[in-house]
């Protein structure tokens, strides 16, 4: 039998679900690096629960929770440099916070205000992307720009298990391979695409192997193990930076919340499964390990979570105090050089708005 090609996909895990090391820490990674990231995971979770509460009280539109994804999201963000570019879907706040996006911007976005995507920092990252996986191709395009201009930057993107079925993901992977781009495709496998389970998306054994179709480096990672996330990302970022091309990493995690606040997951998934997933929660796992290293205790956690709450509340207040944009905002960012007919529509919209708001407005 002649073999034309063969492939292996490695699986990375450092801490098991009880927080016990299953192998030595990756070189260069120590507890000191991990502690601030763990704290960041707690911040993200605090933000998330407050955002859900905001939505439940009618102060936010539909919101996509990131509960359970904290290790994957924070680990991805932590592995990038400011000059890299990140093209998210709509859920990776943890990664975005690491890059400078502010919680108030997330809230603005889900609060129905385009200014949420006008990140103060980083100016060059892509905005949230609702059409599934289209962001992956934009990241590939960015990576192509970096390569053509000789810039030492990497484009990192994320999509879900559902998104891995989307043709855009394949297109991104294939072009990254064809042009040997500095590109990292994160596939965040949280088990569900709204109501559709991972197994209904594809007959592929892993989602990491999607990368084989484009000749990329493929890796599967325990996405609830921050250490594995960081090590997986390090390998991919190193490859990208050294001109060795793109990677696909599948992060195995779980969506502990409903798909969004508009969804009710009880309609389609069983309690047992969710219970089992909580046992894999990335936060206690790392907490156990950090505790074992004497780097973290309950008192510290209590104080830190209070601090997170205060900071999130400030962000929420900034969001709640924001005034809606004036009606002309819907015309003002459409063209750099707006055509006359559009300016006429703008004037008429302003006039109508004034009239509707009464004589004093």
């Amino acid at each position, binding site marked *: 039998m002649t073999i034309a090609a063969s492939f292996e996909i490695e699986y990375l895990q450092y801490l098991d679900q009880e927080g016990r090391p299953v192998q030595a820490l990756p070189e260069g990674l120590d507890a000191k690096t991990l502690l601030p990231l763990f704290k960041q995971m707690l911040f993200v979770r605090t933000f998330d629960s407050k955002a859900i509460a905001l939505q439940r009280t009618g102060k936010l539109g539909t919101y996509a929770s990131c509960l359970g994804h904290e290790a994957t999201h924070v680990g991805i963000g932590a592995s990038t440099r400011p000059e890299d570019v990140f093209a998210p879907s709509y859920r990776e706040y943890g990664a975005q916070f690491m890059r400078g996006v502010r919680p108030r911007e997330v809230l603005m976005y889900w609060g129905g205000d385009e200014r949420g995507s006008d990140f103060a920092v980083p100016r060059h990252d892509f905005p949230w992307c609702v*059409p599934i996986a289209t962001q992956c191709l934009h990241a590939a395009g960015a990576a192509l720009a970096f390569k053509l201009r000789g810039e030492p930057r990497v484009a990192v993107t994320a999509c879900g298990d559902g998104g891995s079925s989307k043709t855009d993901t394949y297109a991104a992977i294939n072009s990254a391979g064809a042009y040997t781009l500095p590109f990292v495709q994160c596939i965040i496998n949280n088990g569900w695409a709204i109501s*559709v389970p991972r197994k209904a998306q594809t007959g592929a054994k892993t989602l990491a192997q999607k990368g084989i179709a484009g000749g990329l480096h493929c890796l599967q990672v325990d996405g609830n193990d921050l250490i594995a996330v960081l090590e997986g990302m390090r390998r991919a970022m190193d490859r990208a930076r050294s001109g060795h091309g793109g990677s696909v990493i599948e992060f195995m995690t779980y969506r502990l919340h409903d798909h969004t606040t508009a969804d009710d997951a009880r309609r389609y998934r069983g309690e047992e499964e969710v219970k089992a997933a909580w046992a894999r929660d990335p936060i206690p796992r790392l907490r156990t390990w950090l505790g074992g290293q004497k780097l973290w205790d309950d008192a510290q956690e209590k104080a830190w979570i209070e601090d997170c709450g205060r900071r999130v509340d400030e962000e929420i207040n900034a969001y709640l105090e924001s005034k809606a944009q004036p009606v002309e905002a819907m015309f003002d960012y459409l063209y750099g050089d707006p055509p006359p007919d559009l300016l006429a529509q703008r004037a008429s919209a302003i006039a109508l708005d004034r009239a509707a708001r009464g004589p004093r407005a």
Partner: protein
Amino acid sequence: MNKQAAATKTAGQPVTAAAITLIEAITQALAYEMRKDASVVVLGEDVGVNGGVFRATAGLQQVFGPERVLDTPLDETTIAGLTVGMAAMGMRPVAEAQFDGFVYPMIDHIVCHAARLRYRTRGRLTCPMVLRVPWGGGIRAPEHHSEANESIFTNVPGLRVVLPSSPARAYGLLLAAIRDPDPVIFYEPKRIYRQYKELVPDDGEALPLDVCYVLRDGSDVTLVTWGAQVKETLEAAEALAKDGISAEVIDVATLKPLDFATIAESVSKTGRCVIVHEAPKTAGFGAEIAARLAEESMYDLVAPVERVTGYDTHIPLFRLEMKYLPSVDKIVAAAKRAMAAG
């Protein structure tokens, strides 16, 4: 009362029928046709156990099984392409695009294949499929969940484009769409999915796929609209009546092929026409109606045609979206301009 007349009324139905919403009428039509015709299958994202994000397919998988109600992988190209292939092999697939903003990846298969399989093969293969698309703004949804992109498909030969605006019309037109031998793009005005209930007997009677509905008789001005704007347009007619202006209201219902005769007849009586739709103005489907008037009703018009539409910008996120959409005020103002002009 014939079927078409019945569809314009909200009363007078047999008492055995239940009063249902527009979305329930969709579900009822799907269930009816699936019972009747084994070749009808439903496919899309989350249409199975979950019954669709809007619950349009709620309960169908439980009744008809996973061979008749299929969750697809998350890819609209896949949904469109599989649908064409299944239809070519004699099935009658009813595909769902989860939201209007996600139909774009389907356009290639719809335009290059669904719309021309019969043409290309001289009738050897056909493509009897329906694409259901929840449509339009005003529900405080996230980005890409509020588009009104119906005009894209109206320039494509070989398609039918339908957009019902009442439970009864949704039921009758969806049945007709599924039974039609050619591809039908079936838009559903999601803002009025649950606006009101209407008695819709589950009698399996389809409505014609090429008829505009006169929802209100009037003599001074014709208001032509479709989809969720039927609500604001009827309200505008009411408001105009208070000012002594008699407005006729037409629900286009099927955009392609257009029943222009009904519109022309009305305009021959009123001499004035206001076209209302939520898609951007430029090259929205309102343009085609105005163009037909300019070609065929020139001598009837006593005032310039008016269009009350979305602006030529993207529908904003929800903090501003209501300022983007046509409103009762905007429609009334346009009708009054028409009255003043001629």
